[in-house]
């Protein structure tokens, strides 16, 4: 067994020092009847070569696509080589939570820089070291909204949130007595302002709105913030494609009190949906209600600047059942990748990438409309994703794409929009790819 430093002579020495004959003698604390009587029914150990072969054969059972037009919460973006190389240094990926600051300054400072950039992108003042993913970050934001507004128990959720986010919210709110989720409908792909106003009352703690939303539409947060704040509630923006922050104004600057979402797009791959990167940002006054780990700057006894875990009295290991959340392990290494990515991108790279995404998505939409299979549902602004009505059989169109090695857009029928599809284009989709897609779908060649 290559991972165990076993040598018969050393084993004997260990057992002799302890004073037992066999390792099994140390199981004395486990009542005999509770130990397994026969070996586990599992295959025997295997060499590195054999295991690699097995896993490669599983990987090859997946269909590979040369171009991908599916987003819906998991976006294909370019990952610079430096992200993979730096994040695979053992100092980053094999270390634990930085509880001992003197030998964890690398992780601590990296998270401090990450916190700074998430605050910059969201236009807010405080953010934590990461959440599991966009969906759970949205749920934690809603719970935070409830704590911040005290006795209010209603959470309004826009129908434009990602359906999986809505389901996670529902799962986590079901056990909470006195709290209820109420859906606000959509109009032309955007949160219906009239429906929102009708549902806003003194019981509403917060309102969750997609930015951009699940259908790719860019909500006007400023227009929504007015009535929400008038009712004494908080506006929570939920962003499933964080690259949009290179193109869209920061939610905190146009009325959002809390910003939650998914930042996997910064230096990560779609990886069948995880590990991803949830973020949650708030105004400074809300910091003591923040879930999860926070890194703060301080000095050592010699006056040198460094970072530590701070405001831990919010957290489970100190506050136990009174903690702001039960979260302990987070997505630190994914946040590190986002951090490296954002430093490489810088302001120019981020803006440039975002502009390319917006341009490619507009080109894709035009090409798809040319095929005559599709028709516009509305003309609202979008970033790199958009919904279109579909005249033909959605499944047949998808099948044609898959056969041609193209990962098609999402069929929206299971999510309540029959006869519609959600398409996404990013910097990875070349004009050639998009023209070919249009060809496969039967457009006149250009």
């Amino acid at each position, binding site marked *: 067994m290559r991972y165990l430093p076993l040598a018969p002579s050393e084993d004997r020495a260990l057992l002799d020092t302890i004073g037992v004959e066999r390792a099994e003698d140390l*199981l004395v604390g486990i009542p005999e009847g509770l130990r397994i009587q026969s070996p586990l029914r599992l295959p025997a150990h295997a060499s590195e070569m054999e295991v690699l072969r097995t896993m490669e054969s599983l990987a090859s059972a997946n*269909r590979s696509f040369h171009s991908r037009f599916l987003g819906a919460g998991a976006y294909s973006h370019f990952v610079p080589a430096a992200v993979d190389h730096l994040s695979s240094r053992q100092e980053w990926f094999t270390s634990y939570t930085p509880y001992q600051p003197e030998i964890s300054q690398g992780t601590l400072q990296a998270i401090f820089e990450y916190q700074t950039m998430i605050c910059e992108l969201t236009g807010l003042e405080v953010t934590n070291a990461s959440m599991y993913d966009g969906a759970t970050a949205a749920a934690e934001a809603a719970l935070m909204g409830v704590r911040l507004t005290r006795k209010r128990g209603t959470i309004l959720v826009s129908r434009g949130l990602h359906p999986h986010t809505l389901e996670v919210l529902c799962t986590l709110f079901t056990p909470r007595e006195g709290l209820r989720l109420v859906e606000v409908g959509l109009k032309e792909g955007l949160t219906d302002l009239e429906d929102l106003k009708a549902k806003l009352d003194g019981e509403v703690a917060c309102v969750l709105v997609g930015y951009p939303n699940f259908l790719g539409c860019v909500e006007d947060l400023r227009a929504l913030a007015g009535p929400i704040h008038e009712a004494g509630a908080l506006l929570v923006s939920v962003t499933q494609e964080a690259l949009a*922050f290179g193109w869209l104004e920061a939610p905190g600057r146009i009325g959002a009190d809390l910003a939650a979402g998914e930042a996997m797009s910064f230096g990560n791959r779609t990886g069948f949906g995880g590990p991803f990167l949830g973020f949650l940002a708030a105004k400074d006054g809300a910091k003591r209600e923040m879930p999860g780990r926070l890194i703060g700057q301080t000095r050592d006894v010699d006056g040198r600047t460094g970072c530590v875990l701070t405001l831990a009295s919010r957290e489970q290991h100190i506050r136990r059942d009174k903690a702001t959340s039960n979260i302990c392990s987070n997505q630190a290494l994914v946040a590190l990748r986002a951090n490296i990515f954002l430093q490489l991108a810088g302001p120019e790279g981020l803006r440039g990438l975002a502009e390319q995404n917006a341009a490619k998505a507009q080109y894709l939409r035009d090409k798809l409309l040319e095929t005559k299979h599709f028709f516009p549902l509305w003309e609202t602004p979008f970033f790199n994703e958009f919904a279109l009505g579909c005249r033909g059989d959605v499944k047949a169109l998808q099948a044609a794409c898959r056969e041609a090695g193209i990962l098609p857009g999402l069929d929206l029928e299971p999510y309540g929009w029959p006869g519609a599809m959600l398409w996404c284009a990013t910097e990875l989709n070349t004009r050639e790819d998009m023209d070919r897609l249009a060809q496969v779908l039967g457009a006149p060649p250009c």
Partner: protein
Amino acid sequence: MLNREREPLIFERSVPGKVGMDLPPLDVPEARDTRPEHLRRGPFQALPSVSEVEVIRHFTRLSHDNYGVDDGIYPLGSCTMKHNPRLNERVASLPSFAESHPLSDPLDVQGNLAALFTLQEWLKEITGLAAVTLQPSAGASGELTGVMLIRAHHVALGASRRVILIPDSGHGTNPATAAMAGYEVVELPSAPDGTISFEDVVDHAGRTHPGLLSLVQDLGSEIAGAMITNPNTLGVFEHRIQEIADLLHGTGALLYMDGANMNALVGVARPGDFGVDVMHLNLHKTFSTPHGGGGPGAGPVACTAQLAPFLPRPLVTREGERYHLDWDRPQSIGKVHGFFGNFGIALRALTYCLSHGGDGLRAATLRAIVNANYLRKRLEGTYHLPIPSPTLHEVVFNDANLLPAGIHTLDVAKGLIDRGFHPPTIYFPLIIPGALMIEPTESESKAELDAFVAAMEDIAREAKNDPEALHQAPVRASLRRMDETTAARKPVLRWI
């Protein structure tokens, strides 16, 4: 490698005009700007302008200030800092896995589904339980999923029960989880041997804490379940676990097991065989996936057939040679993650399982127990062992022997840093004042264990001979002791 100086924040290195990423020329027309004026992103203040070279040097220099498992023993108790095999990383980065999309047609991701299904089957066999979900993202997420299964079970029976019992030695995530699931927490006191007390316990202040028997009698059908770590955070197996399960089941309550310490049981004992109804596993502890500086982990939940209908949807199922995502689960508590959990972590854990096999998993468990007992034997006498019960994969000492010299657990931890070691978990479990909780795992050789013992002995000597030197520790790390009070009083949580 020593850094020349403290690495500054990247923002201090920023010079406008530098770029670390370039893009190909745009091959489509520029975007028509459809955004209302106020939705256009304004200028950035806190994104750095630096070249790729500077980014690489920045993160490389920062990394010098971190301690990792590859540097040496990382004896954090209940954290199971074992070796992270590189094969796991290679497998997780295979493009067909890494670039697969979670909303693909299931027919196009049969390899992913087969991997998830296979891991589910391994975990069922290892835990002795009937069903597994891989969706929870971490231990705490697994706990919450498990407790919500318990809740769903009671709700389905039309019962409303309000209490979860948790031992005073439990992890903080347990009570925090119970509260998130809408429960009230009632604490179970520990007996002198470190296990859950059946009898009432009178503390030093003369207060009586009802034991398990009284609580079950007094609270009866108010009890929804108990969350118990086994072996507990002292490394001691709850030897009356079967009786505890029977008592709970007798009142209609269920038993949740926190699987944080499963590294002591894999291949040796199965929770399903001693009355556990539902539990989580930490793939980032027991199954060797890297801790990543705090995550990502994964917290699969295993449960009995009785609880299986409530598991989060979708579940991965198999019919003949074909794998499916089963969304049609009317009694499911719903989703607990946006997609299917931390798939990349599940791949690493499966790779670990296949490498070890059933025989290797048991060998690893036994070796972890031997290593912990070797450290216990070597350090006993030098350090105080407050609970002398037999221990499995970890052992808890404290600072009682050093207090006369004015040396506390924190000083021991900082002294270890100066000697090139990562300290153990300190001041936990809460029931042991000044606890030093040591878990070496199976990954350590005799030479590494001996080196750790030598360092601990050296610290004990220094505590006697030169306690002031220990109060000053660490002096060899990149920073000395940090002012955590000011950090919390006047928090600085970002650069600008």
